[in-house]
């Protein structure tokens, strides 16, 4: 299926906005860019690799009639799970962005919100993910392990005895166990 590559899924949403909502987003986006706290809950949930929101009132110069959100995401799992996690992890932030969507059905009941999202999704015909075999959580864990592994290797010394090496090796394993 084109929308998936390994464990990664691509979604593209084009959602027209209610009049005036774009003004709010033009204030919100620069603030969100500067404040890591805005996206911290997403990072804690660790299910989106890369995503972006864009405002546009035209596609390649052709007017759409309204300003729209153009949203792309690369995430783990299926679209329904994605929407569920989003709703549970960052409901307030979801409303801050999506509540301005035309015909926005509110987050709850979830089924209506999921239907609304899917109705605005466009199928991707060709999708490439360089590390689609790893989930977002696995990527984050691997980077933690790799950093410590590098540090361990840099500290290796020919003068060290095998037992000293082994003690450090066991300490390394204990330190990275939660990410393995």
């Amino acid at each position: 299926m084109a929308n998936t590559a390994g464990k990664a899924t691509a979604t593209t949403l084009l959602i027209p906005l209610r009049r005036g909502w774009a003004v709010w987003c033009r204030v919100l986006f620069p603030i969100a860019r500067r404040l890591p706290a805005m996206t911290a809950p997403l990072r804690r949930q660790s299910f989106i690799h890369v995503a972006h929101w864009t405002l546009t009132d035209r596609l390649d110069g052709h007017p759409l009639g309204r300003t729209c959100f153009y949203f792309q995401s690369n995430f783990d799992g299926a679209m329904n799970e994605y929407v569920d996690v989003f709703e549970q992890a960052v409901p307030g932030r979801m409303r801050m962005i999506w509540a301005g969507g035309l015909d926005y059905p509110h987050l709850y009941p979830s089924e209506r919100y999921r239907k609304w999202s899917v109705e605005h999704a466009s199928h991707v015909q060709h999708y490439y993910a360089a590390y689609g075999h790893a989930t977002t959580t696995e990527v984050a864990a691997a980077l933690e392990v790799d950093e410590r592994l590098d540090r361990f290797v840099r500290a290796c010394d020919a003068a060290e005895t095998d037992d000293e090496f082994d003690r450090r090796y066991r300490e390394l394993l204990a330190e990275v166990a939660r990410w393995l």
Partner: protein
Amino acid sequence: MALSSFLALCTLRAGVDPHSARQTLSALYAKGPSPFAASDRTHFARLQVIDEVRMHKPRALDHPVLVFSADVDGDVESYLLEVLGASAATFAEVLHLCADAPDDATAPGFAPRATAFLLAHELTVGLPYVNSPGATAVGIRRAVLRRRQLAEFAVTHQAKSPAERRKDFLELFANARGRTPERALGPKEAP
């Protein structure tokens, strides 16, 4: 290195039916590796056709567009030059779907002209989100591999002696860092 999200929307050429354009894009899978795989700087990339927008109900666009999108390490222009040069034939086929796009991969200067075309059709991303900022695609692939290797190593080497464990560990992990095992092992254990 910072991750850049690039998004270009290019109007389909007159006479190109969105359905057949989708088939052309879907057929790329059958022709070998993704053209985006030509660059180690690609994290994620997609090609798709958008031909409707839902304003209360679906409304067909008068001018369907092809979406060319990539999340990449470093600056976009050098990235586009790299992939469009390395996968020129495939991308020429893709760009052939778009109005006024360069579509002859054999023509001199195809990659620079195609790059300029895509940059001219860029839609600037408003709010990006990256879960692992600063990590390159190469670094992530390598880290994922090494994490798996370390987990396997920990299991398979439980019963080995400290000397064996050290030798095998350094052969597996120290080499990858550019350190020679000889240096790390010391004169006694070196082969």
